[in-house]
């Protein structure tokens, strides 16, 4: 199965596959971020591979100069009972990744979560807004430079709000 996936992807997207690695029997393929939608569409629609089930999308902050963030796609093929992990790297200067909501509608909330936690924007997403934190929250909590205990006063408590308005 692994060889088949790599072979098929190499035939079609030879230049867009950056790296193929395996750890503990799990296959990870790093793809160029411009091509992620095409790769996903191919993987889903190919009769033999049939990765029709999107398990998860998440972000990772590697906290380094180049390619700081990564977006990880976990796929599952119902037909072959096989897992595949796709990965795209995102540089801090250009935090936009094409959205895969057109391929799987399950991607909708996962991408919103990634946006909420890392600030990675997904172009073409139908409804990209924060999912966990309040709308007016300014930071991205899962970035490595955000402190665990948060920034005091960034989300006001009920009582504090009133005091603020009373004082003007």
């Amino acid at each position, binding site marked *: 199965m692994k060889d088949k996936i790599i072979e098929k992807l190499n035939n079609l997207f030879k230049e867009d596959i950056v790296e193929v690695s395996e750890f*503990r029997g799990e296959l990870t393929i790093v793809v160029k971020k411009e091509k992620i939608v095409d790769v996903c569409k191919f993987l889903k629609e190919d009769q033999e591979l049939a990765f029709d089930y999107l398990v*998860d999308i998440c972000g990772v902050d590697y906290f380094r100069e180049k390619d700081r963030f990564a977006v990880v796609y976990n796929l599952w093929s*119902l037909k072959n009972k096989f897992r595949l*992990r796709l990965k795209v790297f995102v540089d801090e200067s250009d935090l936009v990744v094409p959205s895969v909501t057109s391929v799987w*509608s399950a991607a909708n*909330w996962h991408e919103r979560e990634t946006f909420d936690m890392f600030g990675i924007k997904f172009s073409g997403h139908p409804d990209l807004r924060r999912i966990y934190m309040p709308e007016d929250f300014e930071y991205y909590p*899962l970035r490595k430079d955000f402190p665990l205990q948060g920034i005091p006063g960034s989300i006001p408590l009920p009582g504090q709000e009133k005091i603020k308005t009373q004082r003007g």
Partner: protein
Amino acid sequence: MEEKIDKIVESLGRRNIEAEIRQDPLGTEMILNVGPQHPATHGVLRLVLKLDGEYIVDAVPELGYLHRGKEKIAENMTFLEFLPHTDRMDYLAPLSNNTAYMLAVEKLFGIEAPKRAQYIRVILNELSRISSHLVWLGTFAMDVGALTVFMWCFREREKILSIFDIVTGVRFTTSYARIGGVAQDITDEGIHAIKEFIDNFPKELEQCEKLLNKNRIFIERTDGIGMITKEQAIDIGLSGPNLRASGVPRDLRKDEPYLVYNELDFDIPVYEEGDCLARYYVRLDEMKESVKIVRQCIEKLPSGPVKADEPKATLPKKEKVYTKMEELIHDFILTNFGGTPPVGEVYHAVENPKGELGFYIVSDGTGYPWRLKVRSPSFTNIQELKVRGKGNRRDDMVGRRGSIDTVMGEADK
């Protein structure tokens, strides 16, 4: 009126619905806010419904009222220290979460628990599956108007919790699993209690079935309600009983056998209808299968250690820590720095009562996870309410919401 619309728009927080509301000058459509504190939302989910009379035009679920920042917390503690946090994710089945997390960590470290520990894990997993489904059955029956079932289900659930009390020492948030095994061995008293429970449970479950299966109100409020077709279920990414009620036979216990599930004989109940009634039957059958699994496990339970002998990853026994030098050093290192896993990333998923619970761990070679992502089944399952909310009746919303069985603790993380 203008002010009111502004307020609604503000609370919805989305721009494209604004235009839709303003296109309705007579105000025939009504916005109904359900939650975050509402008995029918089972937790702190907030649903904003746009109604046209009795029918739902649009449904917007809002999450985050229980977002506790677990993933961020995980990055700041060792692998073992994070264990108690997994209890509080899907708090209807804490033992399943413990096992799921530990399996992911063990995969990263490359170790395996001994056979006896694996069997104990399976027994407790299946018992917590029963206890989780019992809460679901009770609250779902309550949602559609039957209070007695709630009382009976909780009576049975209390029996399981007292088994946990005997086996793990705690009745609810157990933190029982350890890297490479379980915290302590199961006692004869525990086995006896489990045997007694599984002998009586099918009869008690039958009583609940008698109340519901031919109850006209129950059938009418569930049959054909909240339909999800096979294609939709796969597209939304549903998992667990919800997916199997839509005719997709996906169960990780069979598809990617973990622990000792490939040595046990059990069936995966699958129903084709995809409505609330099918989801009820799937869960009911699953409870019966779980009883079967527990019974087999108790018969097959091998003797031996309950924790792997891997000094670099598993905590040594307490007696040895107090008497031996090497064990003391290992204990100190593991507690303070949390072992040395290889650099890499793993994903391991198990079949939880709610669906596929997966942990994706990125390790940089230290004892702290660099990134830990929880793939929670409830999070994806709630999406169903948004996608399939349109065109249904308002009063069916409660049943549909209940039949999906989500826990906000893991959906919000």
